[in-house]
């Protein structure tokens, strides 16, 4: 006989991955993507079956089997999801036992629509976690900041752990973003570790939080299921940078330019931004097979993504395969888990051509094509000799169409973990985990000899190859025991972890387009490497299920520091009090959960210049070294060119940056968990900041050095609430809202503690060497450092007139710190409504108090733009307001309020359910980046880092998806 049916949740949505087992047998099955399960080969009889799913109460039913029977299962969320298990560092924990700040987001809560990199699945979902997509280019990934980041010059990226392998987030040449090598469709859950008591077990890499990603797995004894999904999308440009039209430009040059400039005007009307953008098609197809063969659960998935960018020629193709196997040996006392993921990507990079900037500044009165065959037929500005004018922008379309910038990336991530329960002492489990993360990127750039961009050197052909290697081994033992007599539970984990990284970049020779004529001399190969290893321990103690204690310690070593400073100790302790269990709240029925958590911990940072994979200075900063020059930085003695050796700067005293975090939180639940959430306050203090600081001149072998000089602190509040507003059989309405406040202040940034030390940062366009931001004690990092604009009677800014803030009679020294790029408040809102087979959902995000320096307007918003010698450049429309003659790059006029509300996503799906004997179907329509409400005058207010310069626009994406299950 057999049992089959569908497992659904409280609002009749399928629960993929829910398992059904038959007590007293080894038989069982798991629900597929549509919630269907089937168990076959059952001898006739009456059985007790048990359905299980994480976060839901077990359902136990009795059933007689004699031939095929159907058993639908309705599961209800376990009370307030308290029995939910979350993944923490080196282990798992029941949610109700958590003392630290850990947020789990599982696949059913993921963002919908076309998503190419994993972190976008949870954008806007978690308080305190800010995810900003880097650009509109496919695969370009995001910048992730958990509670704003704890470092200055060292990495602010969180540690990302996939199936037990801390992956390298370092950039790979040939791939738009390292995270784009992970297929989001394979991901089951994210666990976000926010505070130090949760992260300190990761020691030196935990200051900026930890993202633990778990991929989908097969179920034990589950029947074979297949799932196919296809999402097809169209991306369209939403907005253009506001520059002058051809007619406006003609009028302006005629009115304000000299005869030589007027003579350069053309007769065409070209919208260059129209020329370079396109409507882009994308398709994302995934097929997965899962089941359990003779008790060997497996899941195999294959994905293929092909996404065009809205910038012409831009394209990203990705093929992924993932395999999970897990099996119990020795009567399940030895569990083995194997995860393998492989990715192959092909990219065409259009952004590197510079076409976006060129389209903004190229003269709109000129035609796209010159009418002759020179320079590929594209119109170009020429110099006195008839060659392309090297100072002028190149034809934007020519830049795109004459350039082949292609890259391929490969990445393999895998691990095998072993969990062995001692047969004679079942309280003890031994764990071993070995894993690797190997990626390489290769590519080439080709521009033909006829193109203006590389005209004198007759085109270009260059290649690159990079290989990043990372392997990890962890060994740990866990002891867990209930001491019923004293109402206590103890679990204790102790272990050792070692992780090694290396980054190899091959030497590179450039060629002219013929591939034979060399251009310049080859670069040198590089291969920096480092390791981090450490011992760790964790004690969890709970008394009477009410009082919880977690204490962790990690003793880390990083090869980045000299033997004297290699060790760092990172302890944490946290207490939680489950007030709801106390007698005085037992009767408060409206209150379903109340927990108070207090934690303190110390974490470390050693990851400096994490995106520089070629310079040993960031990997051996303590070591006295000599580095070789390449052949193009040689020096002539006699008739010989000598490749030189440079003595490198070093700092023997360099040591860990340490962050101590205090966290106070309340977890709450009302009305049987229909309203739940948490409120957290944190205070974080980072000392011995690893800062790339100017040093006393002459004392070392450069003018700046990584040293432990600064301090900063961060305070913040994270709040979130989830509301199940309506919950009936046919109608369900869920609402989620989160809001985060965050304030960062640098308290010192000088070797001598001098509060006047300033470190200019934030390079801007419009003249080399100009910066717009500042690091300074007492200020928030990266605040804008500008002059205060004076406005005329009509509200127009007066050119070059600034407020004499210190009343010195001159405004040359009157730059001041004005606003900041980071939002003071950011929030996420999402809601979904299900009515019968229809589900509609949307998600919105808002940032408040973030400012952006409109570099595009600043660097093109003056008549000077058409006064270059020999060519004209188009101007930002802001010049119509400002009428500036010369660029006023440092006016606060260009620091603009970029607060915004963005609807990330609107989604409607219809679940057809069973459409054939064994097939189920779901169809989804989706719009991403639906609208943005902002006062910001540039293209897009959401700019990581706060400097808007030639931003690749985020498209609006319309997509249609189908999901077929078998």
């Amino acid at each position, binding site marked *: 006989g057999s049992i089959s049916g569908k497992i659904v949740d409280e609002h009749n949505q399928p629960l993929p991955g829910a398992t059904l087992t038959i007590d007293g047998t080894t038989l069982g099955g798991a629900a597929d993507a549509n919630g269907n399960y089937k168990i076959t080969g059952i001898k006739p009889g009456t059985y007790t079956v048990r359905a299980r799913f994480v976060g839901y109460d077990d359902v136990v039913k009795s059933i007689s089997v004699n031939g095929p029977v159907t058993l639908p299962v309705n599961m209800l969320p376990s009370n307030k999801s308290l029995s939910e298990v979350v993944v923490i560092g080196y282990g798992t924990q029941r949610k109700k036992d958590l003392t630290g700040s850990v947020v789990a987001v599982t696949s059913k809560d993921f963002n919908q629509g076309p998503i190419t990199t994993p972190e976008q699945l949870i954008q806007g979902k978690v308080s305190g976690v800010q995810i900003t997509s880097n650009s509109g280019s496919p695969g370009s990934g995001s910048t992730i900041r958990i509670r704003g980041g704890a470092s200055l010059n060292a990495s602010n990226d969180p540690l990302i752990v996939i199936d037990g392998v801390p992956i390298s987030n370092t950039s790979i040449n040939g791939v738009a973003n390292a995270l784009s090598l992970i297929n989001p469709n394979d991901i089951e859950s994210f666990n976000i570790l926010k505070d130090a008591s949760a992260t300190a077990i990761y020691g030196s890499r935990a200051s900026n939080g930890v993202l633990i990603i778990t991929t989908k797995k097969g179920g034990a004894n589950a029947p074979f299921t297949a799932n196919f999904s296809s999402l097809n999308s169209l991306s369209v440009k939403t907005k253009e940078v506001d520059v002058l039209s051809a007619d406006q430009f003609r009028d302006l040059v005629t009115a304000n330019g000299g005869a030589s400039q007027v003579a350069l005007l053309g007769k065409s009307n070209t919208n260059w931004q129209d020329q370079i953008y396109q409507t882009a098609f994308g398709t994302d197809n995934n097929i997965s097979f899962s089941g359990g063969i003779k008790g060997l659960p497996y899941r195999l998935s294959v994905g293929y993504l092909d996404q065009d960018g809205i910038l012409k020629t831009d394209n990203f193709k990705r093929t992924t395969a993932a395999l999970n196997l897990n099996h119990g040996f020795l009567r399940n006392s030895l569990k083995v888990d194997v995860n393998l993921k492989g990715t192959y990507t092909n990219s065409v990079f259009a952004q590197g051509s510079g076409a976006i900037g060129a389209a903004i500044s190229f003269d709109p009165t000129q035609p796209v094509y010159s009418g002759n065959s020179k320079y590929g037929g594209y119109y170009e500005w020429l110099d006195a000799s008839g060659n392309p004018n090297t100072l002028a922008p190149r034809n934007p379309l020519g830049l795109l169409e004459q350039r082949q910038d292609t890259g391929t990336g490969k990445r393999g991530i895998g691990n095998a973990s072993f969990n062995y329960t001692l047969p004679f002492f079942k309280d003890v489990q031994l764990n071993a985990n070995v894993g690797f993360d190997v990626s390489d990127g290769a590519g080439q750039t080709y521009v033909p000899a006829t193109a203006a961009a590389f005209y004198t050197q007759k085109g270009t052909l260059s290649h690159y190859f990079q290989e990043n290697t990372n392997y990890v081994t962890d060994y740990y033992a866990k002891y867990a025991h209930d001491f019923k007599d004293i109402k206590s539970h103890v679990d204790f984990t102790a272990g050792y972890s070692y992780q090694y990284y290396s980054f190899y970049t091959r030497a590179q020779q450039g060629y002219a387009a013929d591939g034979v004529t060399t251009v310049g001399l080859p670069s040198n190969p590089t291969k920096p490497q480092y390791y981090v290893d450490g011992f760790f321990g964790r004690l969890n103690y709970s008394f009477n299920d009410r009082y919880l204690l977690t204490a962790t310690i990690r003793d880390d070593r990083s*090869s980045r520091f000299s033997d004297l400073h290699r060790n760092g100790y990172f302890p944490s302790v946290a207490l939680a009090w489950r007030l709801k269990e106390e007698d005085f709240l037992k009767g408060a029925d409206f209150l379903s959960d109340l927990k108070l958590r207090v934690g303190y911990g110390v974490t470390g940072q050693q990851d400096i210049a994490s995106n520089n994979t070629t310079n040993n200075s960031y990997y051996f900063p303590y070591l006295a070294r000599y580095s070789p020059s390449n052949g193009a930085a040689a020096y002539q003695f006699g008739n010989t060119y000598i490749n030189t050796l440079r003595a490198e700067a070093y700092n023997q005293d360099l040591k860990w940056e340490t962050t101590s975090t205090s966290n106070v939180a309340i977890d709450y639940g009302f009305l049987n968990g229909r309203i739940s959430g948490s409120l957290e306050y944190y205070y974080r203090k980072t000392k011995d900041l690893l800062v790339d600081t100017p040093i006393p001149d002459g004392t070392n072998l450069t003018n700046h050095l990584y040293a432990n000089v600064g301090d900063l602190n961060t305070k913040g509040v994270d709040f979130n609430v989830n509301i199940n507003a309506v919950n009936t059989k046919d109608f369900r309405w869920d609402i989620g809202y989160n809001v985060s406040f965050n304030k960062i202040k640098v308290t010192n940034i000088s070797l001598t503690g001098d509060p006047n030390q300033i470190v200019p940062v934030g390079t801007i366009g419009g003249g080399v060497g100009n910066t717009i931001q500042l690091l300074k004690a007492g200020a928030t990092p990266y605040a804008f450092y500008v002059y205060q604009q004076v406005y005329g009677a009509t509200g127009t800014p007066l050119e070059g007139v600034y407020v004499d803030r210190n009343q010195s009679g001159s405004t040359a020294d009157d730059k001041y710190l004005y606003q900041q790029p980071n939002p003071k408040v950011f929030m996420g809102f999402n809601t979904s409504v299900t009515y019968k087979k229809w589900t509609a959902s949307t998600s919105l995000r808002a940032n408040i108090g973030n400012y952006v320096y409109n570099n595009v307007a600043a660097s093109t918003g003056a008549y000077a733009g058409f006064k270059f010698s020999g060519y004209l450049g188009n101007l930002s429309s802001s010049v119509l307001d400002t009428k500036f003659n010369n660029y006023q790059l440092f006016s606060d006029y260009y620091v603009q309020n970029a607060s915004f509300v963005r609807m990330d996503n609107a989604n409607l799906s219809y679940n057809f359910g069973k459409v054939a004997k064994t097939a189920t179907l779901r169809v989804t329509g989706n719009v991403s980046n639906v609208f943005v409400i902002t006062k910001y005058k540039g293209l897009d207010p959401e700019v990581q880092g706060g400097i808007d310069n030639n931003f690749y626009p985020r498209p609006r994406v319309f997509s249609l998806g189908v999901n077929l299950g078998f």
Partner: protein
Amino acid sequence: CKKDLTPNYDQTTASVYKDFANYKPVLARLYAGFAISGQQGPAGNPDIAGIDEGFSNYIREYYNMQELTTDESIIAWNDGTVHDLHDMVWNSQNEFIKAMYDRIYYQIAACNEFIRQTTDGQLSSNGITGDNLTQAKHFRAEARFLRALSYWHAIDLFGSVPFVTENDVVGTFFPAQKSRAEIFAYIEGELKAIDGDMVDARANEYGRADKAAVYMLLAKLYLNAQVYTGTQRNTDAITYCNKVIAAGYTLEPHYRNLFLADNNNSKEIIFPITFDGLHTTGYGGMTYLVHAAVGGTMNPVDFGINGGWAGVRTTKQYVSLFTDITGNTDKRAVFYTDGQNLEIKDEYAFTDGYAIAKFKNVTSAGKAGSDNTGNFPDTDLPMFRLADVYLMYAEAVLRGGTGGDAATALNYFNLVRTRAYDGSTAGNINAGQLTLQTILDERGRELLFEMHRRTDLIRFGKFTDASYVWAWKGGVMAGKGVESYRNVMPIPSTDLINNPNLKQNTGY
């Protein structure tokens, strides 16, 4: 598990000096410190940070300090505070002044490191003997010369400056500030001390300093001693000019050839900074000197480059040093006037101000340099050359130094004039015409853009006050006098903050 990691493709300091084959590459890097900006040409892996790598190149910044601040040069670009240099309104936060200062101290620190690692004791413990030992001592002396050269730049520009030597360890400490006169004495002592270890004049490999370079630097120090120490040393200047002249350099027959891609063949150059379109590349140095001067209707091909950067031009006050600006008589009138206005109404317009066609990446035979991209010139920078020595001799005699004579002074002066007129004596002057003003003007004509102008104007008392003004001096079109404290540059504010031992120069 790999426990003891060592850097791939690098050597540790502990091992590098065990092999004599490494010594010359380390020495070459000290010379290259003037020419390039980092360990990867043309850019990438810079020596110093906080400013664009190409911008901060030693020679490029030295040009900015010595030329942009004077009548000889004005720049059109919109980069940072670069206009403050010509406008003479710079302050201690000027990133170009900081870059110069940082380069000087980078160079001093790099020399200190080599000198520290090549003491007699170190050479012996590293097993360097025989001819290698002799070579190593030459290398060490050259490193001391290069350090002295940078210290000279330091006191010339900044006055009293931090003092670090090979006796300081590499780390982060607070060097003491020494007075201009103290460091003057230190440089003098160093240059005299290394005389014995330097290779004889004109006997070293091309590109490396020899005894004549040491004498030249001593002569420059003495000629400016009044400014640096308050005591004139013109007699010593003459002594060392004579030593250089006695070494046998000859004037290049054609002035223009001194600044072309094959100027390494010149017998006039005493100490060059070498550049090569393939092997010594970057966006400072000669790349800057050639590209930045080309713009407007100038044809880049004539300069052996792929395009001009439309940056530097000259003022009409400089142009007025010439009676014939066509270049038909005095070949040093290298003005490009087509489409250029003599008057500079707009500092930011390349076409305001006559352009200068002096440094070019073409050979004397008219062939373009070796870099087929047209980016990087082969042209070397003549840092010290014989014509300069002749004029220094004449000036030192005129200023009352002994050990020379007026007739020789006039002769040397006229040798320079005759060469300028391409062998014609039509431009020669008589003894009565040889005045200090004549010498200053002649230095202007002869050494345009060769980075002597600021020092010269200060020595002649014409740099800051209103006795000589040029377009946009003081930030006004007609030019005006500025505060006398601007005869020295400010110590950059970064170093004042980082090093509590330092005191800012008066006025800043």
